[in-house]
C-alpha cells in the first residue's frame, strides 16, 4: 500500500508527483496566489536596496 492514493475520490488530497513514497501535495489556490504576491513584494524590496545603494555609489 505504499504510495497509496485514492484516485477518483474527490476527498483525497491531490499530489504534485505520483512517484512511489513521495507525498508532495499540490498547493491550493490561496497558497499559490500568496506565494507570488510575497515573491513580488520581496523582489520590490530587493530592488529598493539596489537602487538606494546605486544612489550612494553615484559620483
Amino acid at each position, binding site marked *: 500500500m505504499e504510495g497509496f492514493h*485514492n484516485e477518483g475520490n474527490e*476527498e483525497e488530497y491531490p499530489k504534485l508527483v505520483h512517484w512511489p513514497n513521495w507525498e508532495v501535495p499540490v498547493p491550493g489556490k490561496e*497558497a499559490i496566489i500568496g*506565494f507570488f504576491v*510575497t515573491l513580488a513584494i520581496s523582489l520590490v*524590496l530587493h530592488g529598493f536596496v539596489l537602487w538606494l545603494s546605486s544612489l*550612494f555609489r553615484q559620483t
Partner: protein
Amino acid sequence: MLLLNWLDLSIIAIYFAMMLGIGLYSARKIKGMDDYYLGGRRFGKWLMTMYAFGAGTHADSAVGVAAQTYKLGISGMWYQWILLFNTPFYFVLAAVFRRARCLTTGDFYELRYGSSLGILYACMGVIINIGFLGMMLLGSGRLLEALTGGQLSFAWSILLITGAFVFYSLIGGLVATVWNEVIQGALTIVMSFLLIPFIYKAVGGVGGFQAKVPNVDELFSLITPGEIGLFWIVAATVNQFFSIVAQPHIMSSMAAGSTELDNRVGFASGLLLKRVCTIAWAFVGVLAIAYYGQGKILGDHVFGSLVRDLLPVGFAGLMIACIMASVMDNGAVFIVATSALFTRNLMRRFREKQDEGLELLASRIFSLVFVAASIALAFSFDDIPSAIRFMWNLVPLIGVAFWLGLWWRRANRYGAWASFFAAAIAWIAGFYVWELKGDSGLPYLITLYLTAGLVAGVLVSLLTPAEPKAALDRFYLTINTPVGQEDKLERLLKLRQQVAEVI
C-alpha cells in the same frame, strides 16, 4: 555620564505600567495548555503579523545588522536579508503547521517519527532556545550598555532585562506576549527609521558620505569578495529552509492564528515587515562608518551609540523601553515554547497520568533553569555576528529530518537519528578540525553538514524498516486536511484502514 533625564525615566515607567496591566489582564484568561501555549488559536491577521514580526525581531537583530554593515558595508545586511527569498515558501508552508494540530514542534516530530524523535527534538529544542535567548540577551545587553554610555554595565543590563521578562512570562503566557508584540512591533518600526534622517544629516547626505569615505563603491556592493559572496548567499539561504522549520517557537508563530489564511498572511507579513526594518538597520550601520570612522567603535555598540549621540532627549528612554519590550515578549515566547517542550515532550514520557495543573507548575519552575543557562551562554559569545552563525549551524541539525519526513514516506526514525548525528559530527569536524570559521568558512561548513545529514538520513532510512503504514497515513492525511474538517479526516483514515485490511 548617564544620559537619562526625567523624560526618559517617565517614558520607561509609563511603558512598564502598561505592560504590567496587559500581563495581569491576560493571566485571567488562561484556562488550559492551549491558552498558555497558543493563545487559544484565536489571533487574526493583524495580531499574527505583529506576533511573527516581534517573535523574529529582537534587539540583536538591529544590533547584529548594524554591526556587520559597519564592518563590511551593505553586504553585511545579508545576515537578515537572506530570509527575503525564503518568505514566499513560508506562505505555503504555514498551513502545514496549523494542520498538524500540534501544540509544540516536538509534537510534530513525534507525530511523524514516534516518541524517540519527540524526545530528541525536545532536548534539541531546549538547547536551541537557550542559544536564541542567550543571543538575544547579548544583543540587548550590548545595546543598553551603549545607550547608557557604559554606566549600566553589560552584566547588570542582562540581569535587569532577565528579571523583567521572567516576571512577565510567568504571569501571562502567550496572550500577554502577543499583545506586547503589537506595541513592541510598532515601537521597533518607529525606532528603526527614526535614526535615518538624523544620521543622514549628521554625515552630510550622499555628498558628505562620499567625501568622508574613500571606498564607497565597495561599501555599497551587496557582495564582499572573500567574505560574503554568491556561494555564501546561496548556502545561507538553503540553510534557512532547514533552520526555520526546526525553531521551537515556530509552532506558535505559524499556528496560533484563527484561520489558515491568518497564519499564512500573518507569518509572511511579519517576516516582510522585518526585512523593511532591516533596510533601515543596514543603512544606519554603513552611514556610521562616515560618522565614527570604520572600526573605531565596537560593532555591537554602533546602533545604541547612534541613538545616544544623535537622537533628542527622551528618545534614549523610548529606545530602552523598546528594547525591554522586545526582550520581554521574545523572552516570554522562548520560555513558553521551551516549557511546552519540557512538559509535553519530556515530562509526559515519564508520567502516565496527566495533570495539567502540575504540568503548568513544572513548566514555570523549569523556565527559571532555562533562563539561568541562557544567561551563562550570553557571556560566552564573542559578538552578535558569531552568535548568529553559531545558531545558523545549530538549528538545521534537527531540521534535515523535518524535510525528509514531510515529503518522503520512506524516511523513518532511524534515518532521522542518523541525519541528526551525521550533520552534528560534520559540523563539529568542519568547525574544529578543518577550521571552517567566520564568513569565509560558513558556506563550506553549511554544505558539509547539510550534505552529511541528508545522505545519512536517506541511506539509513532505505536500509532499515519503514514506519508503520497506519501511522504514516495518519500523518500525511492530517497535515493535508485543514483544521475544521476533522470528520473528513476520520472518514479518510477509516477508508485507508479498510483498503489495507482488504489487501
